């Protein structure tokens, strides 16, 4: 991990929803950094706080959600302190987002051309002809065939995969430094998913932007990410390179996740599920949020939140079992 520059640095971010039944602590102190031109994956089960993390970064949380603490540094500046107006232009120019459902970003009553040209006009000063040319160029870039014809069509006239491509084109119109993609292929069939993943990798190479890829699918994350964050109950369990997370998992939850998915060709081996159900965010335990489902939980896991420790230069984990392992190894080394 050398010769890279940090584009985004998130420090101890907390986000809660203040509901009638109490404070739902959706994000409980997460920290990570994103380097220029990298693909960072955020993986976790539903409700683990992936989307809320993205909304917090973009400051598009809706009531009753609020960032309660932390910093989001972009090139060293804390965007959480930006005025609404400054944030608005920041969102349009440096960072943009795509969603699972393309209709979140597309308006059904306007043509593709209308919407795409508008997105281009807002962020650049180009003439009419230049805007049109740019719209065609964007559609071609994202692999939409017959772009002239598509510009005149409405969203419902396109297939799901095609709409996803158009949404990506709109998000990239402002040439962002960071693209946040929240489950962009979850609703798509595998062959179309493969097209979109291939496209995102290709665009990343061509345009050099950084991508935050949010998904619950360990396969998608392994396929395209340089670095991975595993989340559980609004906390980071561990983060590291893809190889570290998959071949050297150091948090009991990650280990459980990997054991619970069928692997290619493992036809006759039994899966090992994680027992129990996800934790209630209204009643977060004081220790590790995963402790009640963890079969290696120790006393300290129930009382104290696990410390984040560095496993190696490419890997950080927050699990007491791991802390113990590292400590034991160090001690063994000393004894010898």
């Amino acid at each position: 991990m050398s010769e890279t520059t940090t584009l985004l640095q998130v420090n101890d971010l907390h986000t809660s929803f203040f509901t009638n039944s109490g404070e739902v602590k959706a994000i409980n102190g997460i920290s990570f950094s994103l380097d220029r031109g990298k693909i960072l994956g955020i993986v976790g089960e539903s409700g683990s706080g992936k989307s809320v993390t993205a909304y917090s970064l973009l400051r598009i949380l809706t009531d009753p959600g609020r960032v309660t603490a932390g910093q989001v540094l972009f090139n060293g500046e804390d965007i959480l302190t930006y005025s609404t107006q400054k944030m608005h232009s920041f969102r349009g120019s440096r960072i943009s987002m795509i969603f699972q459902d393309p209709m979140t970003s597309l308006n059904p009553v306007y043509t593709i051309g209308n919407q795409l040209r508008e997105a281009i006009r807002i962020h650049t000063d180009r003439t009419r002809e230049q805007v049109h040319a740019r719209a065609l160029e964007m559609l071609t870039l994202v692999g939409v065939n017959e772009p002239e014809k598509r510009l005149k069509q409405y969203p419902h006239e396109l297939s799901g995969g095609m709409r996803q491509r158009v949404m990506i084109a709109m998000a990239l119109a402002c040439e962002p430094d960071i693209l946040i993609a929240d489950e962009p292929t979850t609703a798509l069939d595998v062959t179309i998913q493969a097209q979109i993943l291939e496209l995102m990798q290709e665009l990343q190479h061509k345009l050099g932007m950084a991508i935050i890829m949010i998904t619950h699918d360990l396969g998608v994350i392994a396929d395209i990410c340089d670095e991975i964050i595993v989340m559980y109950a609004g906390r980071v369990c561990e983060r590291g390179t893809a190889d570290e997370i998959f071949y050297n998992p150091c948090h009991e939850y990650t280990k459980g996740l990997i054991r619970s998915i069928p692997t290619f060709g493992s036809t006759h081996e039994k899966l090992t599920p994680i027992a129990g159900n996800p934790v209630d965010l209204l009643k977060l335990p004081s220790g590790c949020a995963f402790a009640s489902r963890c079969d290696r939980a120790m006393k300290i896991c129930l009382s104290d939140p696990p410390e984040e420790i560095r496993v190696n230069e490419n890997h950080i984990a927050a699990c007491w079992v791991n802390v113990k392992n590292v400590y034991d190894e160090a001690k063994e080394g000393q004894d010898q």
Partner: protein
Amino acid sequence: MSNHPLIDVRNLKQYFTVKADMITKLQLKAVDDVSFTINQGETLGLVGESGCGKTTVGRALLRLYKPTAGEVYFDGNLITDDNIDHYRKDMQVVFQDPYSSLNPRMTMADIVGEPLDIHGLYKTKAERKEKIAELVQLVGLNSDHARRYAHEFSGGQRQRIGIARALAVNPRFIVCDEPVSALDVSIQAQIINTFEELQEKLGIAYLFIAHDLLVVQHMSSRIAVMYLGKIVEVGPADEIIFHPVHPYTQSLISAIPLPDPKAARERRRIILQGDVPSPLNMPAGCPFRSRCRYATEECAQVCPSLEDMGAGHQVACYHPQG
């Protein structure tokens, strides 16, 4: 074991009439001449992209639709409109969505007990209660929670309730239509194991429909691959996964997101161009030819039929690969 399969589907067709506009009506061939068998205690996986006809195969086979053509034999007996009620008990279904397929205002006991009521499977109230408790425990739920309402359970728990309900009538065959697709992976594994344990214990056969190929290859002894209403390849699970020969199956397998970064880096995805054509506008000849890189003149004429490749592996393609 008897020498005939438990389920024998022959040349099943399910066409729907849909309105193209106010005047024109079109025929949608959702399932077009599909044949397969499933042995007692066996799992046949059925895969393919959304809209290819998987759900319709399951529903037509259970006669929840009136099939346009074809026959279904259960344990050697031809199923007809007249005798289907007799076989309903033997053939059950579990659906994808544990939220919409159960009535949230019914208690777990009511949901699991309903089929017992319908088929009169108990003599006394006490026996009914006992049967419900047994079923609930069989699928790994707590029978103390029998009086709780469906909406009070999590997704995975609801799916278990759906399975307990299907098991209530002692079926010999269950159509599992995307039963784990809506669940988180850790919960998915619990339900997959439940299906497997029930099969070992009770010898139930499954038609296991899913779009997640890793889940299907894990569950199935054989896999059938559908495209636009037709089975294009079928065979032993390992054959289909490791040695697919139909160009569509090959790209489908190559597109599986692998939870293994090294394998993902090494493999080459075969990216298909374009989308699945509309079933209302089927190309003549092979249904896959508009996206197939091996297509020739021949492929545009007559639809290829399933040909035997040996060892129970069949493929419908003029230019099988490998």
